[in-house]
């Protein structure tokens, strides 16, 4: 193995190096060649087949549908015969105009910072763990592990804005005075969240540690 072992993490014997297969769902260890975990019934893979391909596919799908989510209106408000359209950013600006800075910040973080941060984080992880990657090999493993955990935990919180639209559209049906209905961006935004969640779930975290092992396939 080249390079210093970072942060005093002892090089460990992995299940794969020992010729065993570990179950990702329950931790049980099996001899190689068994297809299904005997404890929990999950499919057994030493490393998930095609993990990175799936990550890239879902990630690109997520980015593609995130574009219309920002261009088209998320919310259509009809008040006294006049219809105003609000995009995601428009909704944030409106909240700032009301003086609700805290809530504006929540929506901005959930709908812009988290999705964009997720695109970058997943792309970065998929780049650095690919076989033969030169970037920071064997260093910052714990940092990447934490990045992966944060991405997995935080991604679903982007759905806040979609739920806001759902509640507003259900509540504000006051005939002439005001009516709120959802725009097409609500659909593409929820798809974007779902696709990036699938991208994060397709990622096999064990790939992060294979770099240290120096035996990435």
């Amino acid at each position: 193995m080249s390079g210093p072992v970072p942060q005093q993490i002892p090089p460990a014997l992995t299940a794969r190096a020992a010729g065993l297969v570990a179950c990702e769902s329950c931790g049980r260890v099996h001899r190689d060649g068994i297809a299904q975990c005997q404890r929990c019934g999950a499919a057994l893979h030493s490393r998930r087949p095609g993990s990175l391909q799936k990550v890239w596919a879902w990630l690109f799908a997520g980015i593609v549908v995130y574009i219309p989510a920002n261009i088209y209106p998320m919310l259509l408000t009809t008040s006294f015969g006049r219809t105003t359209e609000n995009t995601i950013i428009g909704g944030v600006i409106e909240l700032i105009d009301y003086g609700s800075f805290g809530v504006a910040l929540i929506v901005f973080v959930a709908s812009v910072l988290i999705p964009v941060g997720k695109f970058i984080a997943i792309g970065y992880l998929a780049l650095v763990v690919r076989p033969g990657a030169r970037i920071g090999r064997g260093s910052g493993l714990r940092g990447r592990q934490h990045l992966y955990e944060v991405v997995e935990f935080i991604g679903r919180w982007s759905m806040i804005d979609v739920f806001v639209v759902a509640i507003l559209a259900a509540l504000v049906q006051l005939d002439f005075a005001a009516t709120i209905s959802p725009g097409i961006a609500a659909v593409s935004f929820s798809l974007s969240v779902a696709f990036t969640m699938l991208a994060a779930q397709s990622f096999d975290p064990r790939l992060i540690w294979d770099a240290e092992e120096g035996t990435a396939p």
Partner: protein
Amino acid sequence: MFDASDPTRARAGSGSPPTLDPDRLIACPNCDALQHDAAVPVGAQARCHRCGTVLMAPRERAMTRIVMLAATALVLMVAAVFFPFLELSAGGMVRRSSLLDAVLAFSSGMMLPLTFATAALIIVLPTLRLAGIVYALAPMALGWHPARHAVPVFRLTQALRPWAMAEIFIVGVSVALVKVAGLAKLSFGPAFWTFAALVLVTVLSDNYMCRLTVWKTLEERRRP
């Protein structure tokens, strides 16, 4: 808290990979490092000796507590769905809407897929997950053999976890309240508080849940 021990440490120096007994080992699901499958005392935590992930953290009477809390959340869910959630009044008109109305808001034309998605994320999947937890773990809490198909059911509840978004919905409600404030007067219905309680109870139940311990218990209690 203690580190799960490294099975290689005792055998350090031997050139060839040692022959290991898979039944006495567990592997970290995050980094694949092997560790001895030692019994973890109640209240302690076993962490992976390489990446630090918490592997096992058994809690006292965890099964009973998880099942009780999940059952409570199920009852709360029924109330939360059917009672009025929010009440909006503007210009002499009052509009009550339940959780079901919020879900059906997208029901026109192109928005139909969003209706299914919202219904699934805030009602169907959380309910399914809670019911699955009660089904798979209630016999464990009582000290019986696992129910039929408990293993696939528990695996399903694990897979559903990221997709059950009740807690995110509550935050969405709070944001919506602020947005509507200028337009009309809003008040909470009983279902709002029920739903908030449901979120709290679900979080508590998940807190007691230790995946690896549950799987081991399910395997040990399996019908011979």
